[in-house]
């Protein structure tokens, strides 16, 4: 069992009358990468600023390495912070930026030089020592900020929207690189982000936050497939909702569900909460039947009219209007299938096990 490096217990913070963070508790284990995911204003940035020491919690405790951080000022905590805008010192070279923390600590000159070289090698920026931040690309600046924060061997790395200032293509490339760098240095890391893909690809575990509260914690797959609330389901990935109520059991593992789209069969065991009034299906779990292909045994079937099909290269997104007037999104992989024309009548099937039931 790895030791806990960062621990928050019942932390709350209000700004005036508005609660920013309410009763938040979580811990990060040594070497773990944890993402705080939520929309802007959900309290994730305030949480990060409390851990860094720029904001004092009203209630609760924050411990880093088992030490209570109450009354410990930012420069006395050993955290590595990477801001969204990187906050590189514009008047210093890349080398001086990375060396800044080591200088403040009063390390010996040759020890600083060795550590800077080690860090720049880790982030693949050897040869850029003398450059000024303004002469670097966004991706390079980000890696300098990372190297500068990691140089002081912090107890915890705090990354605030680390990739959101980059363009989409670069962001995808750097995700894997960033994760590799953090893992190679065995950094205990907390990432704050509103970008679900960033959270899912970088983090070992995700905490979903909304309105100052922790909604759910888990690995990416668990949050995607078994969201506990509608808010979580809607925040991670896309959803198609069906409302109604649970009916009788068909088998021990299957139940009926009556909705205005008709009767469906959903996967649910005896322990299921009878108060459930809705389920959602992820767009990629819907399948459009071609021609007069029969709907397979045990699958749910809905019919609708195609509003539009968006050809996105690797995927095709279909917007389909159901008889109830509700529009659902159906995503298919591009396998060179014929594109149906707008107005076409479509039959769509999904498995009972793809129905995510939520109270």
């Amino acid at each position, binding site marked *: 069992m790895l030791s806990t490096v960062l621990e928050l217990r019942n932390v709350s913070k209000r700004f005036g009358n508005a609660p920013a963070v309410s009763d938040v508790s979580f811990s990060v284990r040594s070497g773990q990468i944890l993402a705080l995911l939520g929309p802007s204003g959900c309290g994730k940035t305030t949480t990060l600023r409390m851990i*860094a*020491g*720029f904001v004092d919690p009203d209630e609760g405790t924050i411990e880093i390495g088992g030490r209570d951080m109450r009354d410990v*000022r*930012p*420069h006395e*905590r050993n*955290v*590595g*912070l990477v*801001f969204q*805008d990187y*906050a590189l*010192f*514009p*008047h210093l070279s890349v080398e001086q930026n990375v060396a*800044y*923390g080591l200088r*403040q*600590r009063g390390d010996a000159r040759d020890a600083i030089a060795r550590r800077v070289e080690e860090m720049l090698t880790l982030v693949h920026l050897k040869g850029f020592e003398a450059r000024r931040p303004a002469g670097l690309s966004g991706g390079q600046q980000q890696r300098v900020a990372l190297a*500068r*924060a990691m140089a*002081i061997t912090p107890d915890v790395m705090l990354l605030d929207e680390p990739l959101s200032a980059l363009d989409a293509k670069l962001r995808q490339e750097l995700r894997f690189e960033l994760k590799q760098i953090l893992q190679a240095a065995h950094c205990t890391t907390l990432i704050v982000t509103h970008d679900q893909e960033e959270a899912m690809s970088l983090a070992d575990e995700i905490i979903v936050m909304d309105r100052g509260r922790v909604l759910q914690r888990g690995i990416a797959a668990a949050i995607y497939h078994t969201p506990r609330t509608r808010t979580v389901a809607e925040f991670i990935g896309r959803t198609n909702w069906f409302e109604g109520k649970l009916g009788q059991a068909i088998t021990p593992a299957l139940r009926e569900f009556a909705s205005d789209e008709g009767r469906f069969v959903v996967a649910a065991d005896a322990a299921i909460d009878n108060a459930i009034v809705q389920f959602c299906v992820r767009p990629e779990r819907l399948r459009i039947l071609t021609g007069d292909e029969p709907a397979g045994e045990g699958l749910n079937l809905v019919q609708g009219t195609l509003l539009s099909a968006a050809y996105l290269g690797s995927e095709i997104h279909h917007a389909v209007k159901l008889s109830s007037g509700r529009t659902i999104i159906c995503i298919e992989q591009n396998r060179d299938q014929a594109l149906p024309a707008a107005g076409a009548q479509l039959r769509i099937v999904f498995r009972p096990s793809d129905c995510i039931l939520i109270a």
Partner: protein
Amino acid sequence: MGKRHQRQRVIDDVAGVTVTGMIVATVLLLLLPLAMTLSMSFDARDYLGPFPPSELSWRWYEKFFADPYLVKGLKTSLQLATLTALIATALGVSAAVALDRLPGRLAELAISLFLSPLIVPGVVIGFALLLFYSRASLDDTFLRLLGGHVLITFPYAVRTVLAALGGIRPSLREVAQTLGASPTRAFWTVTFPLARTGIAAGAIFAFVFSLDDVAVSIFLSGPDRYTLPVALVSMLHANFDLTIAAVAVLIMGASIALMFVLDWVAGLDRVIGADYYKA
């Protein structure tokens, strides 16, 4: 094209011509007197003859440098402007740093207070200082002038330094702190080096305004110490000749040169930009 669109086009065209005309008129109004002064300063004639000058010469410039009364004024002005710039900037930096750390409301109030000399007419400041100095029995003319000049240039120094500090992202200071720098060390290693150009700009502003002042200086000057502009004004009353034009051109030249220096160290648009209140 509809009638409505056609009418709109005519209106736009008329508006365009009017705006251009106003800009041209403004530029002419500002520049023509300066151009006249420039040409007059090289006029070889003894009297104010019709434009343009029939002959050019350096005689007024030679006369200026040969006149001990005016040269003494120039010396005083330069000494005064240099000292004023140093003192006003040092005060400005201290004030701006303090403002930067005050909570919003209080900072706004303090800024208004610091900038208040700007809205009091120079004549009023000069007269008030004259009375105040007499009461306080401060008799040294140079010190009297210095006090007045620091007072009127200080707002400019505060404003430029504030603008420079406001342009520094708070995240830079915060990151410095997470890297182990105390707030004070973060100021000296990050904030101050980044605000340096703004501070230099403030000093240049103070220098120029001190060099230029008449209203305050005229009350505080005496027969023993007086600034160049004050000397020019009294010369204007006593014996008018075109030396004044020559001096005006020299001061203009020096101001323009300083503005170029200012643009070079800090960028003029950044210095005169609209971010002063971002404390």
